[in-house]
């Protein structure tokens, strides 16, 4: 069976001083039906731009210049603007870090979800309101009937995020893109929203592309993890092996530098240096300027994909040279 979403060799550029600057550079991955794939990286890694590219919402003057994005076999990059708008509401929904980016401050929240449903489906106002009430209950909003008539500012941050999730689910999408869905929330509220997302994902079977910088959130929600660095994928693996036996030196460094893994009284193992700007990316592996195990080919040639184990993809010369010559797969 083919995947729900197939992204191949995606390349998105912004105009720069010395010609077009890539922000997403040759990214390929699949998202299966009902699966949660986390796209992880630090700022500037291209994880959000990958999501925007899939939705064809890259802010101007950026644009997708190469690659393909297939949803259930249909190439999204070739669709008309109208057809793409239909895909965005109905088949792929999105939830953002900041609920107020998608809630209208002067419209009652129930009305906003009713509108979203009626925009995509031919149902009566009363039916849409019934469905909204049921959705509010499903996302754990206490006293849903009363909250339908609330304005966004009357709700707490956690409740606003629940309204946004209800709105995203209102059109029964096959796929949800969640961009840092809990980053703006307090940690005790975040724990509740993560639990809600996991329960909804299990009960509805919605596939989720989760974009986050937080490996703790990855552990809570993801089935598989794709790690990005400077516009490229560096490693893809199922959740447990990625967290316990990361193979790419960047993933290893990221996990080691987390304060939760640090020992009190000892310096944290840090990744030296900073993420290079797109204009200063090395020709070879993007991580080679900071990598503790770099050797001759790293700065010059980009590493090919190796498959060290079933379901694992890594882009690293060092991993490649340590694999048996007849690589797995």
């Amino acid at each position, binding site marked *: 069976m083919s995947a729900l979403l197939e992204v191949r060799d995606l390349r998105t550029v912004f105009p720069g001083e010395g010609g077009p600057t890539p922000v997403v550079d040759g990214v390929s991955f699949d998202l299966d039906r009902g699966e949660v794939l986390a796209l992880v990286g630090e700022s500037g890694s291209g994880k959000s731009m990958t999501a925007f590219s899939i939705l064809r919402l890259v802010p101007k003057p950026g644009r997708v210049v190469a690659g393909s994005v297939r949803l259930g076999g249909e190439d999204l990059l070739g669709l008309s603007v109208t057809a793409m708008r239909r895909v965005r509401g109905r088949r792929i929904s999105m939830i953002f870090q900041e609920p107020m980016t998608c809630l209208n401050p002067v419209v009652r929240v129930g009305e906003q979800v009713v509108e979203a449903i009626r925009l995509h489906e031919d149902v009566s106002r009363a039916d849409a309101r019934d469905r909204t009430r049921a959705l509010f209950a499903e996302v754990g909003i206490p006293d849903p009937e009363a909250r339908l008539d609330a304005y966004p500012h009357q709700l707490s941050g956690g409740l606003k995020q629940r309204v946004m999730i209800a709105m995203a689910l209102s059109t029964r999408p096959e796929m949800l893109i969640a961009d840092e869905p809990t980053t703006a929330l307090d940690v005790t509220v975040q724990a509740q929203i993560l639990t809600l997302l996991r329960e909804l994902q299990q009960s509805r079977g919605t596939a989720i592309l989760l974009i986050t910088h937080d490996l703790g959130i990855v552990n809570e929600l993801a089935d598989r993890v794709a790690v990005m660095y400077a516009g490229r994928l560096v490693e893809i693996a199922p959740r447990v092996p990625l*967290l316990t036996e990361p193979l790419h030196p960047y993933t290893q460094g990221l996990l080691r530098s987390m*304060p939760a893994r640090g020992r009190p009284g000892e310096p944290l193992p840090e990744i030296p240096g900073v993420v290079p700007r797109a204009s200063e990316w090395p020709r070879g592996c993007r991580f080679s300027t900071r990598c503790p195990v770099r050797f001759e080919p790293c700065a010059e040639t980009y590493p090919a994909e190796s498959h060290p184990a079933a379901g694992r993809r890594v882009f690293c010369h060092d991993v490649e040279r340590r694999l048996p010559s007849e690589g797995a797969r």
Partner: protein
Amino acid sequence: MSDANESILRVEGLRTWYPIRRGLLRRVVGHVQAATDVSFEIAPGRTLALVGESGCGKSTVGRSILCLENPQEGRVEFEGRDLLSLDATSLRAARQRLQIVFQDPMASLDPRMRIRDQIAEGMHSFGIGADEAERTARVAELLERVQLDPRTMDRYPHEFSGGQRQRICIARALAVEPRLIVCDESVSALDVSIQAQILNLLRRLQEELGLSYLFITHDLSVVRYLAHEVAVMYLGRIVERGPTERLFAHPAHPYTRALLAAIPSIDPARRGEAPPVLGDVPSPSRPPPGCHFHTRCPVAMERCRREAPPMFAIEGGESRCFLSEAPGRAD
């Protein structure tokens, strides 16, 4: 508790409320009870972390210490003098030794000023360095101290990355030879790999210069690494205080336990644990009666709804919970 002379900062019974004004006459109709009865002290060369979620009052406490707010009650003793009772001139002098580093370096640096001038600005104000050449030499030395290339001193803030800008803010704070630095969410906006660099830097500077830190953050995982002592705040009050090791290993207050359990773990075995508490933090303008935490507390008793618990001394610190009240101990 240590002797008063041993602490560099001693805060006692601090209360900072913001009036809520309504109507034509701007009558005071209530208060945002940002900080109430806050007490703690910091010894030279030590770090106290002030931890809590949004609206708990941790930043208000930080700002009150720097006299950027007007507390209604309490004392802020810095190097033995109560800052709240100082006149403007003496306060200015005291501020030289009391600096702050904020969350967003871009907002606290002037985009149109070369970084050398921003770092040297405080030296001018406090008369550090005899002449321009001496100050330039000191700027270079400070940049090296925070691991930036001194040759970049003529650049502007936008030419640096977020982590480098935070290093510049730290260098600027160090320029006036402070004894205590208030770090208000100073690493919260940084990427994980950069956050580790800045945390290591802060710790190294503490060892080299004997600095004290008041480290204000919402992120408990960062605290474990840096702080000697932790104070947890909820809705304007400190609910638990104690040495970091003890607080992490044996949290006494139910809110501290919830806060610790809520951190998403990177341990694959710890996935799918139920959220430790439900609901949102209530508004600090209308905190619940009794114990402020009782509306979300999993072990709340009838008494907690009516009566506000005082601070109880516990082994390794104090806790504002009736369950921490020492039972009549035998032997």
